[in-house]
Structure formats: C-alpha cells, structure tokens
C-alpha cells in the first residue's frame, strides 16, 4: 500500500471529526422538542373582512403606550393611500389594499408575537422574551443596539430609534403586556368598533376562526394565517382576500426561525472545541514528520561526510606509501648510482695510476735507450 501510517491516521482523524460535527448538527436539529406554546398563551384574531380602516387601533396604541403624537392625526384617512410600516414610535399601522374586485381591504400590521420568535433567537443578550401569556416583550436595559432582531424578523416589524443618539431603543408592539397583567384588553382590541380584533386564548381563537370560516365559506379564504406560519404566531388572521394580495407573506414556511438555525448553531461548540485540538494534532504530526526528515537528512549528510573523510584518509595513506616507495627507489637508485660512480672512479683512478705507472716506466726507458 502506498499510504503511510501517519497519513492514514491523519485522514481518519479528519473524517471522524467531520462525522461527529455532522451528527451533532443532526441531533440538535431533530432533537428540538417542538414547543407547542404555554397552555394559557393568549392571542388576537384579526378578521380582515371586518376592518374598515378607521385607524382607531393606531390611536388607542398611541394613547395607551404614551407615544408622541404624529404629524397627521389619526382621523386623517389619506395616510392610507400609502403603504406604511412600523417605525420608532409607531407600533402598529393599518394599510389599505385593493382586492381583485377593486374593493378596499384594510389590514392591521404589528408584531405577531410568534410562538418561537426569531427576534428572541437572534438576540445574543436575551433582550426579547416570550412570556407565558403570549407577549414577546423587549428589555431595553440589556439591548446593545446591534439590530440583529430587525434582520431576523420575517415580518420586518422591529423598528429603531435612529434619531436617538445616546440610548436608542428597538420598538415594537408589546401586546400591551402591562395591561394584560392588570386583566385589561390590549388597547387596539378594546377600541376597535367593528371587533375586527378579538383577544382570547390562542387555541380558542383558532376554533372561533375555524367556525367563522365554516359558517361563511363564501366570505373567507379557508386558511388561518398565523396558525402555523413560522411555527405559529399569537396574532391570527382570517380574510376574504388572498393574503399575498394584502401584503402578507405566504412564502414563510411552517418552521420557526430558531428551529431553522438550531442545527448549524449547535455545531459551533463542537467545532470550537474539537477542531483546534484535532488540527493542532495534525499540525504537530506533520511538523514532527518534517523534523524527522530534517534529522535524517543531516544524518545522511554526516555519514556522507565521514565516508568522504575516510576515503580521503585512505588516499592520503596510499599517497604517503607511494611517496615512501618512490623515495626508497630514489635512494636505491642514488646509491646504485653513487656506487657505480665510485666504482667508475676507482676504475679511473686505477687506470690513471696504471697510466702513471707506465708513464714513469716509459720515460725511464726512453732514457735508457
């Protein structure tokens, strides 16, 4: 096999980490117990067929919450000619739409007090809280003004006090939580002359809405908006006009926002906890591998060096030996030469002596002749 043990272990570790992360994501996503709401959770049923667009609800909300009075008074119905949204001191608005028969349809818009609110889920300082009576209330004392709640809300409800420089708040309908605590009805519900808004136990309201639709099937669309949208909302709507024609999103699905994000979010602790350890391990292993390779390389270089030294020594010895031999040879040669010369000299000398001797004899002869 081509793969080394180290590589195999590295791959195996990486794979198991990914699998563990994915498994925990799935568990967290599926294991979310579907919260069906507190038993006494209240709600408001808005019968859109009954709304006449008188804006008394807006006026009551403004009074009850002691909000600043707007520029145009609440009995000015020309504001309905433009679509409005909630804003810093406007917790609720009524908008006018034209249905397919060119008839006016009016719809009240405000925080829907979801069963599992996206704003509460997105808020990392727990400024939003779903109360047992159904209201989603906001605590301005912990709010940091990040406005993640505005991003998260699928209905685009929370508004912000952009004009307030030092302590801006997020603003939205409170379902008149203080009034509910006193046993009163929400301001808008109490004032509506047509009872287009009724307040009660959410389960009861669903029954009432279902009943009304069944009694007048030609007057209502067979759907209670808010029963399941985004996991269910406390504010329920029934209408004779299709909801998408009156500015209400029908593409939201039935999963609540916290349920949608629970899976990936639950993976964060395991990623933060496990991956650094794992990746450090892999890094350490590969670093060690490099170190060992480095050491081995050095060793090899050293061995090579030693071998070269040895070789060099051998060669030097050899050269020395050769030099010795040469020297000896030379000496021998010189000696031989010297001997030869000496012999030659001796010979010459002997010859010379003989010559001399002969010479000496010769002249004597000459004389003697």
């Amino acid at each position: 096999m081509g793969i080394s043990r180290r590589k195999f272990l590295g791959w195996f570790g990486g794979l198991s980490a990914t699998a563990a992360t994915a498994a925990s994501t799935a568990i967290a996503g599926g294991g979310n117990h579907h919260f069906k709401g507190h038993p006494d959770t209240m709600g408001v049923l808005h019968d859109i067929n009954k709304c006449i667009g008188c804006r008394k609800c807006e006026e009551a909300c403004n009074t009850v919450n002691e909000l600043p009075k707007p520029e145009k008074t609440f009995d000015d119905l020309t504001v309905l000619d433009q679509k409005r949204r909630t804003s810093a001191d406007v917790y609720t608005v009524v908008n006018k739409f034209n249905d397919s028969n060119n008839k006016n349809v009016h719809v009240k818009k405000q925080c829907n007090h979801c069963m599992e609110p996206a704003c509460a889920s997105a808020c990392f300082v727990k400024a939003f809280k779903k109360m047992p009576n159904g209201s989603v209330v906001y605590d301005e004392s912990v709010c940091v003004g990040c406005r993640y709640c505005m991003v998260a809300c699928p209905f685009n409800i929370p508004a912000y006090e952009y004009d307030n420089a030092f302590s801006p708040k997020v603003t939205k309908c409170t379902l008149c939580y203080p009034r509910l605590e006193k046993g009163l009805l929400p301001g808008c519900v109490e004032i509506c002359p047509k009872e287009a808004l009724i307040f009660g136990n959410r389960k009861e309201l669903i029954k009432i809405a279902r009943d009304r639709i069944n009694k007048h099937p030609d007057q209502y669309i067979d759907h209670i908006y808010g029963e399941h949208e985004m996991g269910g909302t406390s504010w329920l709507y029934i209408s004779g006009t299709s909801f998408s024609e009156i500015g209400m999103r029908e593409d939201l699905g039935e999963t609540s926002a916290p349920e949608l994000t629970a899976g990936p979010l639950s993976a964060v602790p395991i990623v933060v906890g496990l991956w650094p350890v794992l990746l450090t391990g892999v890094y350490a292993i590969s670093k060690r591998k490099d170190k060992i390779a480095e050491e081995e390389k050095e060793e090899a270089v050293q061995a090579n060096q030693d071998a070269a030294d040895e070789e060099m020594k051998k060669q030097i010895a050899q050269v020395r030996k050769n030099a010795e031999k040469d020297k000896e040879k030379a000496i021998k040669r010189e000696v031989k030469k010297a001997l030869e010369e000496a012999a030659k000299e001796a010979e010459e000398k002997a010859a010379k002596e003989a010559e001399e001797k002969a010479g000496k004899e010769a002249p004597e002869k000459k004389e003697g002749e």
Partner: protein
Amino acid sequence: MPFGKSDQGKCKSCHNVKLADAKHFPIKQEDQASLANSVISSRKMPALEYDQKDVPEKVIIDVMKKEYEAAELPHRKIVDTLMARLNKDTLGKYFHKDKYTMCQGCHHNSPMSAAPPKCATCHSLAPKKATDGRPGLKGAYHGQCIGCHDKMGIKKPAATACAECHKKKS
C-alpha cells in the same frame, strides 16, 4: 339567514303541484310556459306593510357613551327602505310575507315579535376576552349596521364617518 340553512318545506308553498295532477299538463313546451305564467300572475302577493305603532320612528342608543354621544337611529326610515326593496320583487314579498320576518334581519336569533329584545340582552356591554364567536355590544352594534351597509353597497354614511351616526363628545 345562515347560508344553506333554508327550510326545504317552504319551497312547496309555490311548487305545489302534485305529481298526479302533472299528468294533465299540456305536452308542448310553450303551452306549459303559458300555463305557468297564468298561474303565477293569478297569485296576488299583496304589498308588505306594517303597523306604525309597532315600528318606532327613531331609536336612541345611549347604552355605551364614551367618546361619542348617543346614536340616533332613523329606525322607521330603515324599515321603509327595506320594505320598498322587497315590494319590488315577488319572491321577496313571498318570503317575507309573515308579519315580523323582515324584522329578523336585524333583530335576529330570537322569536319573531313586535317587541324584540334589546341587543344588550345577548351581547355583553363590558369588553371581555373572546370565548366564542359572539361579539360584544360595541362590536354587535357596529357590525350589524356597517356590515349590512357594506353588503348592500350603501356609500352614505361611510363606515369611517363616525360623527355622522353619533356626534363626537367635545
């Protein structure tokens, strides 16, 4: 009248020819039509009318006065308008021929009589949580008048013209 809840027995009041007698009807289509026409025209439906003393001219509704004064209902005018519409139509006349049937349009869910109960008898005055589909008194008043005006396409008084039905308290 609740949708789909009409009494089938009432149909027989007009469609009252017994099957046995039908055998003697003419065979040709146009002969049958002329026979039917003559039967219908011979049915004299008298115009609906009422006793002046039964129908008050004005009704003052002052049970709940908060931001507005008492409402003065032009009661007889409403009854007259409705009767005029009914009298234009034979079926209308026929189905409302009983004395207090037309009154049941507004004075509903109680036996027909010349002295129907007050709205407050069944619709509670105090604002309360909804436990069934029954509106409170304020919702009942506004719902009944405005609802019918809406269905009949009556433009004046407009539903949002609050002061036209009851003056604003200064």
